């Protein structure tokens, strides 16, 4: 298990796919837990529409998870040592493709959600 989350070397394609799937699963699970918790804690007395509040909570959730993920990245680097980061090696990128997917995916998810929230509260919308 530790190999999946803290090993940055590339061994095989199947291993890499398992690793990506595991990261997506854990991230999804953590995001849901954080989101669920925050929906019960944030904006309870806010007079905005409920749906807008929930979408705002989702953005906060992504942000919170992003912080946690960065902490994880820090631990990953410190555990493997700075010398293990071979920025010029293609194999290195194959080894950290799961982390990269989550990192980029989180950013993309955040901005997509932000855009849809902006659309909802846009004055031309009646939703």
């Amino acid at each position: 298990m530790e190999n999946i989350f803290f090993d940055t070397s590339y061994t095989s394609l199947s291993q890499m796919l398992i690793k990506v799937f595991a990261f997506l699963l854990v991230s999804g699970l953590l995001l849901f837990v954080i989101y669920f918790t925050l929906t019960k804690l944030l904006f309870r007395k806010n007079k905005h529409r409920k749906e807008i509040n929930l979408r705002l909570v989702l953005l906060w959730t992504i942000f919170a998870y992003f912080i946690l993920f960065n902490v994880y990245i820090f631990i990953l680097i410190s555990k493997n040592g700075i010398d293990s980061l071979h920025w010029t090696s293609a194999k290195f990128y194959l080894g950290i493709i799961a982390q990269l997917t989550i990192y980029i995916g989180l950013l993309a998810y955040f901005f997509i959600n932000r855009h849809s929230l902006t659309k909802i509260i846009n004055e031309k919308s009646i939703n």
Partner: protein
Amino acid sequence: MATPTIIIGIGTSGLYTLENAQRFYYETYKTNKPKNVEFIYIETNESNRPVGTPIGNDITRVYISLDNMAEMIAELKTSCNNPSWLPDSRVVLTAGLGAGGIRSCGRLAMWGRNQRGDNFGNVINAITNAYAKVMHVNNNDTNLAAQPTVFVTGSLTGGTGAGVFIDMGYLVRHIIQNIKEIYGLFLLPNEPKVIRGFEVMYGNAYGAIKDLEFYNKIENNYKEMWPNGFTKDLEVPPYELVQFISQDYQDGAPAINTLSGLYKMAGLYLFLNIAGIYEKRRERLVDAAGNSLIGKYGTFGLSAIQFPKDQIQEFVSSQLSIELLHRLTDSGEYYLNGQKRSISRASIKQNMAVAFDGILESAFATLNTVEARDLLVLIDKDATRINKGEIKGSPVEFIISMFTSTGNDNYHALVNNNIKSALNVFVDSIYQQVDTALQSTENLYYSKYVLEDIVESIGRTLNYWKSIGLSSQSQNWDNELRKLAIGCTNNTYKSVFEHDAVLKDRLNTIFELMKMHLSIRVLIDICKHVKEGKIKLEGSTHELPKLAFFDDLIKKLNTLIGKTDELENGSISFTRRLNDIRGDINDTTLPILRVYPSNSFSKECERAKETYTQRSGGNVRSITEVIQQQNILNYFKQKQNNKFNEEIYLDFLKAFRLKVDTLNCIEDFNITAYIRNSTEESIRTARKATSPFLKVNRVFTPSPYLPRFVVGDDANEITDVLSAFRNQNYNDFPDTIDGKKELTDLKNIIVFYDEKGNYIPLTDLSYINLMKDAHENVPSGLADENITSERWKNNRSAYTTN
């Protein structure tokens, strides 16, 4: 002995004379008339109304309508045995306003009856009531005379006065049986420099004098069958004594420059009579009649030395009224808590946008409850039922059925039936905003901008609603509703157990959108009402104000201060009144010498205004000085009628006059002291009274039997005045008991009075031949070919006296 007195004014001149008499009385006694006196005014011109003093008006108006003259003639022909004086039905069609200068039309007005009322009956009732009032005013007063004295006044140049004055005399004799003291005071035109263009005036006056002379002869009887059924065959003349006055002195020199000056002198004469000189005159006149020194016709001369306290008061009050009107109609600045500020349109717009949001919120909140049912609670319950699956059919269809315009008992129907309550909130709140703005700023432009900017906010709101796809159309709403209902069932947030809250929220949003859809029509109507005035919208207590109301109000108030481009001839205005007062004060032909402590009218006015500013607590005028705590908007709304300008003018003037008076801004002035210091000038004024206001060829020899005296507030001071005159060898006014009349309340004026009689106007009036010519011959070159010589003469005649 208090003499019960009725003074009857006929026509517009009669009204002006009565107004002056009332005014002089108010200036002296601070009431409009004593209790033993009644003023009646009879008029054919509907638009003329008496102008009161600061404490109101005590002239009773009797309007004798000339509507449907042809029908009135037809009725009189049958009910009065076809009197020969009746005007030709074709002539009356050209009479125009009032009696149109046609004497028989004036007479017809008094005799006739139409849908507006029974004129003859109304006149009789008015005189009967006045008679009852003056005789019963003080039943315990043993000093009250048994018979009243009646004065009839008016001019003989128009149709009304010259038409009814003889009937009026006999009518008074009919109502007050055995009356002896009935007098006429009639105004004649002065000697004409050019008669062309004034033939009607002179012709009417000649006809009237001729008719009067006819009935004054004992061999001629007044034979008429009146519309009230009485047949009269009277030997007595209509009046015991008729006094004629004009703008001329006896030698033809101009005595009084303006017609208003003549009304003033006639008013002063009547005022002096009711104030107390009548008893003194009567003593003399009885003796004069016994010695054949007076006859049936009289005239008089009158002059005075006066500190014009009343004119100063009116001038200052007019200036103060103008200042207040400027404040109300200032388009650039307003006062708030005594501070002058610029009207910032941007700031008003911003405030009104916020205010309208609040109004909208309140209006929508009223739609949440229908018949004590809270619709929001019901919607929440419905949301829970949908999520629990306790509904029939699909959630989308259920949601549509809740809000569709086609439902009869759904939320749409409930709110739609309750939309009037939202309208009430809109109207009442907008009214409140405008009203508060007007009450606090007393500026009509500011209040208008408030209304205009609220409407602009409504417009912006409607545009926004339109941009999000809302409209007042039901079909459009139902289409939008379907999209919203589908949206409600997507992404329900059930995973985080927020599906109930989200659905409730979404249904509430649809409910709010439905309120907007239903309010669009209401808001459009409000805009139409305010901007175009096409429809009338009322809230629970007030009608919504309109922009046109403010525009109209500002325009009318601007007219009152002369701030208008339009030429509104004859319309009442403070600037015009200021000019009139200045004209009156500077009129050197009026036999009244105006004197001042500071030797200047302007300085007296400035001083009075300064005193007012100090004593009233500031130099910013407020409408509370006029209407006290009354609501400004209500006040102006109540005044929105045909007589707006007149009523506002009078309200403002009366209020400020009363305050100037109460705050004692103008002190009395001792006239006797002035006379002692300026005796020569005073003698010149006194001498003017010895020439009557009528150009007659006869020489009037002074007689001790005829009234000639000086009137003042203190007999000793009059003696001082006469003594000062004697020292300058001026002895026209004797220092005897008969030569003095003390009226203790008559402050700020000394009057010189001299009465003449024993002449026949038909022969002695120096320009009687010109008048006769105007009466008998149609003027050459008249454009109207209908006026034949016979018709002209008929129009100048009203009694069968040939």
